[in-house]
């Protein structure tokens, strides 16, 4: 029982990560792919933050009268990872805009069709 409770958080976080990954690889719509990627990355943040947690501790901002603090390092790493994630999202969305200009669609199968036609023509 304690095993299940102690690891419950990790399992849910894994479920969240895999949901994001599933959306990335299963959908053919470019915007939904980016949304999935976002969910995937946001869930990895939760994995790290979950690790840093210490029972009975408080946030690592020092105050009078508190002795134990949670681990500051996972927070630091994830602050970097959030920014990296949003940077990737921005580039991916800019690409989506350009693809929509060039192909008139953001559906993968329609793009593939057009590319195939182009390949045959060329």
């Amino acid at each position, binding site marked *: 029982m304690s095993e299940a409770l102690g690891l419950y958080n990790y399992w849910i976080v894994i479920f969240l990560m895999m949901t994001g*990954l599933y959306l990335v690889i299963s959908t053919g719509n470019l915007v939904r792919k980016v949304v999935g990627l976002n969910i*995937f990355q946001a869930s*990895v943040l939760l*994995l*790290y933050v979950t690790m840093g947690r210490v029972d009975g501790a408080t946030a690592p901002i020092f105050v009078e009268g508190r002795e134990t603090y949670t681990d500051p390092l996972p927070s630091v790493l994830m602050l970097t990872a959030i920014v990296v994630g949003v940077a*990737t999202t921005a*580039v991916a969305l800019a*690409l989506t805009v350009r*693809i929509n200009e060039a192909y008139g669609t953001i559906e993968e199968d329609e793009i593939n069709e057009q590319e195939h036609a182009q390949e045959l023509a060329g």
Partner: protein
Amino acid sequence: MSEHLAVLPVLLPLLAAPICFLLRNRIAAMGTAIAVCWVTFVAGVVLLRTVVTTGAPAIYELGGWSADVGIVYHVDTLAAFVVVLVSSLGAVVLTFAPQSIAKEIPKEKHHFFAALYLLSMAGLLGIAVTGDLFNVFVFLEISSLSTYALISLGQDRRALTATFRYLILGTVGATFILIGTGLMYQMTGTLNMAEMAAHIRETEGVRTVLVAIAFLTAGIGLKMALFPLHAWLPNAYCYAPSSVTAFVAATSTKVSVYVLIRWIYTIFGTQGPGSMSGVVVDLVLPAMAISGMFIASTVAIFQTNVKRLLAFSSVAQIGYMALGVSLVSESGLTAGIAHLFNHALTKGGLFLAMGCIAYRIGSVQLADMRGLGRRMPVTMFLWVLGGLGLIGVPCTAGFVSKWYLVRAALEQDALYLAVIILLSSLLAVIYVWRVIETAYFQEPPEGKDEVTEAPLSLLIPTAVLIGASIYFGLFTEWSADVAGLAARELLGVVR
């Protein structure tokens, strides 16, 4: 000055990138970028000399914080070798670039090209020198994001979709690396690779660490286009601007191979108690490598676009490197590291030659290259020399590393591996011959404009890379010896 040497190759291009962008003038931006690249190259060579002569890795504590709390740069022979590899190829390819991109990229984007190119190079160099696992992720993202933008500069609209696919797979790979890093961090409580290695020996057989290794390997496998994970590579190489293809093909995947070597040998360990990379090295890596060597080479034979042919050949050649790494012996590792360098020169040179061809005939289709041997004799001659290097003909650099690889296989009494290496080289003969046959023994297409030799500013960088690949095939002291030294260091055989 000398105490800051370790950080210099990373900081120079990193700080020059925004300057190039702000200059806006395309000539000034490209000029600055080229100058910075060559200075970086010189710094890299000095760094390698220092590391080799002092016999100890150069340690640089960023911000003055020691390894237990801060980030340190840890430059051993292998890292310095990769720095020289990336900066030299970066410099040569960028020297090639101005004339080439003048035809392929709109003029108002040239300063973007210069800035992104420098950022990509800085990211790759940062991965090479850092001793901190999370820092690898950050610099990997710098180099990846700039590479995406560079590839999307291609003329064809398919460059956009190729980039998008690369971005999705690359980000999934990077996130896998982030998960693996997190699990390693969770079990060891540190991000410094040396400290991590020390703690990992205490936690023998912990399942979390095994999973971390699996995720790190899968993530970096995506980044280095190890065989079944290579889906992004052919189109990305095919539709990127010529100079971008040459740079990415020569450096990006090679640095990923370096990261894999670093993780397997420095962190996970390969022998002794507590070594954790058994399954990866014994089973996964060789299987992927060998299937890649055969399947990708076979696919390459049937390509009608020469750039894509070379891209599939790259996937196959990554297999040779991975195989060398997986042998866990001095000559195997030497072969892997030497092939890293030799293949970077050869493939860089070949893609530059493709750039020359694209510059003159505006196409990289095999059908349009008919009779090119007579119309662009120098370029095609260089192409043939590079092609021989891909096959591994004696006197080329490709031969040296394959020779080491066969020797490593025989040392382990794995005769079948030696046969496999030779057989897959035969496949390379076929696809290289297809191009040679088309260029030399077929009549040029009717009704096309007369084509002349590529301008010298394109030919000289191409000749430098191809020439270097021949030079290092004839005189192996430098490349193979440094590779051997790096291999001994990684295996813990102290000089």
